[in-house]
């Protein structure tokens, strides 16, 4: 996997590169939007991580230009601006996800992995998701584990679907809030955790091997052992 980092802050770019190296990704750094545009056009990247505020050309202009050229490499927009509408603007300009600085590296990692996976799975039109003996039929919206049907409420189904689509990868609370409930703020109580433990009751309780795991300080992970 090859990632393009477009970021004008040298230290932030280097920290990001080190972090990505640690995860086994190769990466290249561009210092502003113009350089980013050039590298994105010539290089063969699987993902762009793009800052918004940069000299010469900002990240959103760069993304709009590339999308105009039918370049559909997934892009994660990073920005110090945190307001809701700036997020909408970032996504409208061609970003596939939006993360507010300062961010936890684990959050960035989870989102990068989700984006890369989304691209891979987009090529296959799945009708059934499965993790171990857990199955979700996307057409009939039926969930079974070891052939036993599990009845879920619509929102629980959406939560499970998101976890299953990102199976094997850590999913953060923020990602769940954004993708399952469409909330772009963090509730001050552990609301998400409670939803997860309810879901866990449903899918794990009466089975010997747990599938839904908590990754302390990071999020949740759905994985067959």
């Amino acid at each position: 996997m090859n990632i393009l980092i477009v970021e004008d802050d040298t230290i932030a770019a280097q920290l990001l590169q080190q972090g990505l190296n640690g995860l086994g990704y190769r990466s290249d750094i561009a210092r502003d939007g113009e350089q980013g545009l050039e590298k994105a056009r010539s290089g063969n990247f699987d993902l762009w991580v793009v800052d918004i505020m940069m000299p010469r050309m900002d990240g959103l202009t760069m993304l709009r230009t590339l999308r105009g050229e039918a370049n559909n490499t997934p892009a994660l927009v990073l920005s110090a601006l945190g307001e809701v509408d700036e997020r909408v603007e970032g996504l409208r300009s061609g970003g596939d996800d939006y993360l507010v600085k300062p961010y936890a590296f684990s959050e960035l990692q989870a989102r990068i992995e989700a984006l890369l996976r989304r691209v891979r799975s987009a090529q296959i039109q799945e009708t059934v998701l499965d993790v171990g003996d857990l199955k979700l039929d996307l057409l009939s919206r039926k969930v079974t584990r070891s052939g036993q049907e599990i009845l879920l409420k619509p929102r629980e189904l959406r939560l499970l679907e998101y976890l299953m689509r990102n199976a094997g990868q850590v999913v953060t609370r923020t990602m769940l809030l954004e993708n399952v409930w469409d909330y772009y703020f963090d509730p001050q109580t552990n609301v998400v955790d409670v939803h997860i433990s309810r879901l866990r009751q449903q899918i794990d309780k009466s089975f010997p091997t747990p599938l839904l795991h908590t990754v302390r300080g990071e999020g949740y992970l759905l994985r067959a052992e």
Partner: protein
Amino acid sequence: MRFFNSAPVRLVLLLLVVYVASAGLIFSFLDYQLASTLTQGADHTLSEERNLLQFQYRDNGTEGLYRAIKSEIESEGSQSHGFRIIDQHNRITYQAGGLSLPLEKLFSGVRQMDVEASDGKVHQARVISFSLGDGLTAFSAVSMDPVIELVRRFRQTFLLTAGVLSLFGLAIGFWLAKRFRARIDAFNRNTNLIMQSGDLSSRMPVSGNDELSVLASNMNAMLERIERLVQGIRQVSDNIAHDLRTPLTRLRSDVQVALQQENPETYYAALQRVHEELEKMQSIFSSLLAISRAESGGMPVKRTVVDFSELLNELLEFYEPSAEEHGLLLHGDVAEGLLIYGNRQLLAQMISNLLDNALKYVPSGGEVRLAAHRQDNQIKVVVEDGGPGIPPEMRDKVFERFSRLDPSRTMAGSGLGLSLAKAFVELHHGRIAIVKSALGGSAFLLDLPAA
């Protein structure tokens, strides 16, 4: 020179100049009208006389003519009149009256000329000449001196009155200007005092209800608002100092202790704690930023018509498991079809903060209720609980940043959730208040304009 820099003094002088100039204009017009009317009157008398004398001569000969002249002089006064009749050889055949006319040929119309009177004085006179027939030419003169005297007196009276009035006006004007200045000076002294000492409790003197007093009252209202804002900012910065100093101190000692060890596991544990603390501090900063942005209007908010009923029901569903976990009964009573023109995320966060607040403070076994309905053009929302409630004197305070009912600040929470909720309510042109709930605890009442 300082005197002429004063706005009221300049105003007085300007008014005076305008007054004198317009009075002068009116006077010039009257003066001209008076002089010309009186001259026309004299000319008219002269032409009447001509008609009379021509008539008398034709009917009654020289006898009648002389008699008529005498009676004219008697009735009009001899000093201001003069008559002369000459024959075709320019010999004077008759002369009467006090004005001795110079020798002239017959001319047409009325002429103005200097004429010597019998007392030696030179008069300005209107003179007419006409033919009587038989080679006789008559000259008749009437002195303009009474007219000139009248006009002179008129001018004198005017100048005197205008002069006295100007002086009077000037005196009153300067007195008013001085009074005005004194009040302005009082304002200036006060504002300078405030600027130098920074004491915002000082106020402007207010007397009566004229414009200056209104200005003073407005300045006082502004000072009061500024005073309150400054107090608020001081309060907030004190709180920030307190709320951030505590975790910073903890961070520092944690790191210090870890550095004294040589155990990677201790490092790891310390770093994890540092990370958690930093996250908390970061979220405090984000909330503070969001509150100030919302309050200052610096937040760019995209608004759409939001199905508020759906939003509330989704939040009820979102919070229901949490409430159950806390041993609380959460029930909703949301009318259908409530629409608000606003931002979905901010509206959701606003209600979410209120529900979080209830979840945090209501003890297990309690009740939380979220209800909403439309009344006229307002959407009335209530988030109420059967918790310990908020004492009346604290009900406004809880919306202030970092305010917590528990003074020792041992309970969880940043003390920013309710401030944020209030800021978002106001961003949607709504109001929020706290009353006692029928459930026993506090009820947050929201009024939001319906779309």
